[in-house]
């Protein structure tokens, strides 16, 4: 027979679990990942997407650079909050081998994106993505979702939701200090199944 003390203990544990759950559920929660250890980084899946001029952009073209890959949309408020930061980073770090690449998930395409890019004075390249592109990266359900990719084309950091500017900046600056190593194709595993 279970004693009243055991019931109390169970109730206490359950209450703590519920409280922690509620805290976790609060929508302020954002997945802020710090830089992954190099040995645990996976190759960022390549893609071929068009920019506003119809040029095909491959992520692989950026190998050797640190890339901030930003999944965003014009209708996404938190994405808009990050855009001035990304514009600053593009200006500040471009000469050190850094690029921001925005993947717009707007269903209406360039007719929505182009005026927005002009309005926000976006100075980095934007390509048009879709659900297939998102699936390559484990399925992009929430925007913004941002991947910081090292000079070897591997995902070093992953942010879901509005991040802190300093978290981006720390990741970029740390990765810019690191030289590109020899390509290790053994790491080209299926990121879409293992993205965390």
């Amino acid at each position, binding site marked *: 027979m279970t004693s009243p003390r055991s019931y109390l203990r169970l109730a206490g*544990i359950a209450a703590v679990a519920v409280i922690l*759950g509620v805290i976790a559920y609060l929508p302020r929660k954002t997945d802020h990942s710090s830089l992954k250890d190099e040995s645990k980084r996976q190759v960022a899946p390549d893609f071929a997407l068009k920019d506003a001029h119809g040029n095909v952009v491959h992520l692989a073209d950026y190998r050797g650079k640190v890339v901030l890959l930003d999944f965003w949309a014009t209708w996404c408020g*938190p994405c808009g909050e990050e855009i001035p930061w990304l514009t600053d980073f593009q200006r500040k770090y471009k000469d050190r081998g850094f690029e921001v690449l925005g993947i717009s998930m707007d269903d209406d395409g360039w007719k929505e994106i182009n005026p*927005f890019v002009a309005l926000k004075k976006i100075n980095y390249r934007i390509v048009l993505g879709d659900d297939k592109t998102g699936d390559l990266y484990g399925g992009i359900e929430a925007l913004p979702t941002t991947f910081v990719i090292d000079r070897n084309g591997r995902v070093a950091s992953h942010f879901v939701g509005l991040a802190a500017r300093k978290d981006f900046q720390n990741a970029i600056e740390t990765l810019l200090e690191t030289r590109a190593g020899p390509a290790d194709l053994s790491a080209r595993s299926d990121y879409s199944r293992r993205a965390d």
Partner: protein
Amino acid sequence: MPGLLILVPAATILVAQTSPTLTVAPVPTVKVRKGSVAAVTLRAVLPPGFHANSNKPSDEYLIPLTLKWTGGPLTVESVEYPKGSLEKYPFSPKPLSVVTGEFSISTKFKVPANAPNGAAAQNGTLRYQACNDHMCFAPKSVPISVTLEIE
């Protein structure tokens, strides 16, 4: 049992990053008379912690809450959306006009004088785009079907 301490928060983090579903309560059969004006009210609910833009968002790039009636014997006269409440979020310098929790959308229909007697369906789509404090989710559409009894 201690595993619960880890599992519950972990599961809820995943939920918080998952697109919320707006639920629309089923509408009981609406009896309408030919030649009259009939009102249909939809009651919708968004999960706690999420908001959707109102029908008149604060920014032209935000996607409004929109109800479109796409098929059925009735003619739409007007759609009355919930008045958005102005809420402040960490990602926006200005308050946004949003709907949260439970809200209603009412439609006034004209019932044509020559509408056929009997049962019919009025179909539509409710489109919304939801966010929480830190992230947004792709626009979604909820199919709506209202059963009518025309007499």
